[in-house]
């Protein structure tokens, strides 16, 4: 199978990237040391090629009403123009089709950003739902757009050096808010637990933008560090921490699921009928070793499983997200089966690190 390439593929190779197959995309895993890249983002800034992610525009009368029914989180929470909301999109049985971010631009236009691996499935699902509920809506996959994430405490000021004319429109953005600056759609969002922007722009301009950011002193960061940054920040990865077989209530996403309001949404009845028996918790390994996905977690209340695990460069110890029985509590001592040994770990409240600091 031929791997898909982003418009930055040649730039990555020229910058010395090690490329890997990431869900069918030829992507940079690192440009040298993944740990160094991780620290640069926590302490200064770095830039990520996220062109593989998909931008979808939903336009027409009644977008909000459609999203109110389509998504587990309540689109009514975002009323300030540009404001973003994180949500799960559920199957009728409550399984997670994808996790995504929606931006409220106008009552006629919401922008959605979905995961790369699920994009085609997501768009088909949205269109299927719209066909009956809101046939007047247009749902457009913005394959003409590219996306770059610039993250870290100094990310925003560096972006303003490169795009000075967007400063006025983006300086006042709250966390989780975007501004449409013509060719550049600039959102104060990210997947690292640091301040920064995600910038959407025309595909044909992205290589020049990438090089200009690099000239401004922003190093490129690979998917390896992206994964340890998001894990430290306690952010879920679709396909690892949850998927179509998992309820959002068992994936640490209860805060994004609005079960209290009268509003009906796809999957709501199933969630109410099936209260969660497991939950997602953080683990810190006390013994020497590295926690990894699918390792068994032995607790006093039954077994669980690690969904994402790695080494935390900020904490300099191994951390994980794990799905365990509900009765397991923060502070509990548990064991993780690694190869043929049971190693000691502790249940902790996550996130593990954000804004340059370890939180454990």
């Amino acid at each position, binding site marked *: 199978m031929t791997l898909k390439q982003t418009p930055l593929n040649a730039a990555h190779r020229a910058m010395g990237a*090690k490329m890997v197959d990431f869900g069918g995309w030829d992507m940079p895993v690192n440009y040298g040391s*993944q*740990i160094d890249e991780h620290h640069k983002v926590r302490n200064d800034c770095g830039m990520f090629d996220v062109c593989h992610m998909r931008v979808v525009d939903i336009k027409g009368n009644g977008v909000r009403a459609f999203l109110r029914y389509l998504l587990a989180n309540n689109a009514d929470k975002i009323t300030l123009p540009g404001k973003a909301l994180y949500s799960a999109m559920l199957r009728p049985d409550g399984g997670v089709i994808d996790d995504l971010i929606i931006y409220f631009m106008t009552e006629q236009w919401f922008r959605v950003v979905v995961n790369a691996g699920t994009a085609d499935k997501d768009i088909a699902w949205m269109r299927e739902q719209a066909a009956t509920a809101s046939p007047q809506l247009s749902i457009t996959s913005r394959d003409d757009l590219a996306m770059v994430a610039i993250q870290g405490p100094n990310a925003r000021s560096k972006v303003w050096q490169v795009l000075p004319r967007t400063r006025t429109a983006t300086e006042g953005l709250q966390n989780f808010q975007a501004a449409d600056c013509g060719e550049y759609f600039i959102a104060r969002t990210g997947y690292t637990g640091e301040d920064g922007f995600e910038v959407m722009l025309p595909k044909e301009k992205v290589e020049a933008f990438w090089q200009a950011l690099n000239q401004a002193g922003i190093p490129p960061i690979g998917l390896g560090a992206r994964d340890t940054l998001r894990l430290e920040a306690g952010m879920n990865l679709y396909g690892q921490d949850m998927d179509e077989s998992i309820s959002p209530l068992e994936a640490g996403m209860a805060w994004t699921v609005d079960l209290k309001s009268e509003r009906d949404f796809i999957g709501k009845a199933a969630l109410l009928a099936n209260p969660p028996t497991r939950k997602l918790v953080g683990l810190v390994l006390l013994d020497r*070793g*590295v926690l*990894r996905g699918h390792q068994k977690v032995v607790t006093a209340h039954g077994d669980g499983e690690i969904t994402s695990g790695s*080494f935390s460069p900020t904490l300099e110890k*191994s951390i994980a997200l794990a799905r365990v029985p509900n009765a397991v509590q923060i502070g509990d001592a548990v064991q993780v089966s690694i190869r043929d040994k049971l190693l000691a770990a502790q249940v902790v409240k996550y996130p593990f690190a954000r804004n340059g600091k370890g939180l454990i």
Partner: protein
Amino acid sequence: MSIPSNLKYTASHEWVKAEADGSISIGITQHAQELLGDMVFVESPAVGRKLTAGEECAVVESVKAAADVYAPVAGTVIEVNGELDAAPEKINEDPYGAWMFKIRPDNTADMDALMDAAAYQAHVDSEAH
């Protein structure tokens, strides 16, 4: 980085160095450390353990992945490099200096079956395709 000509190699990317006292020291190659990336954990075999050729006997873990290390020949573990416990990144910085453990081989002639630098280079090249 060129492949040192004074060492022997395995298909599973260990390097093997014949020491003056008849023992051999074992580490992982430049190619292996580059594939794995930043090392964060090393698990060494116990001193005194008897190993058969090809047996899994140590583990290296990078941020990205875990990899087994195999005994290149049969023998007994006589020493492990404890320095790597606290500083596994030495494997990245100096792969051919960062030995992991030493074996006293059951039969020194077993070394002859291992690859020389040229054969290992050809092996690495063939895996790249």
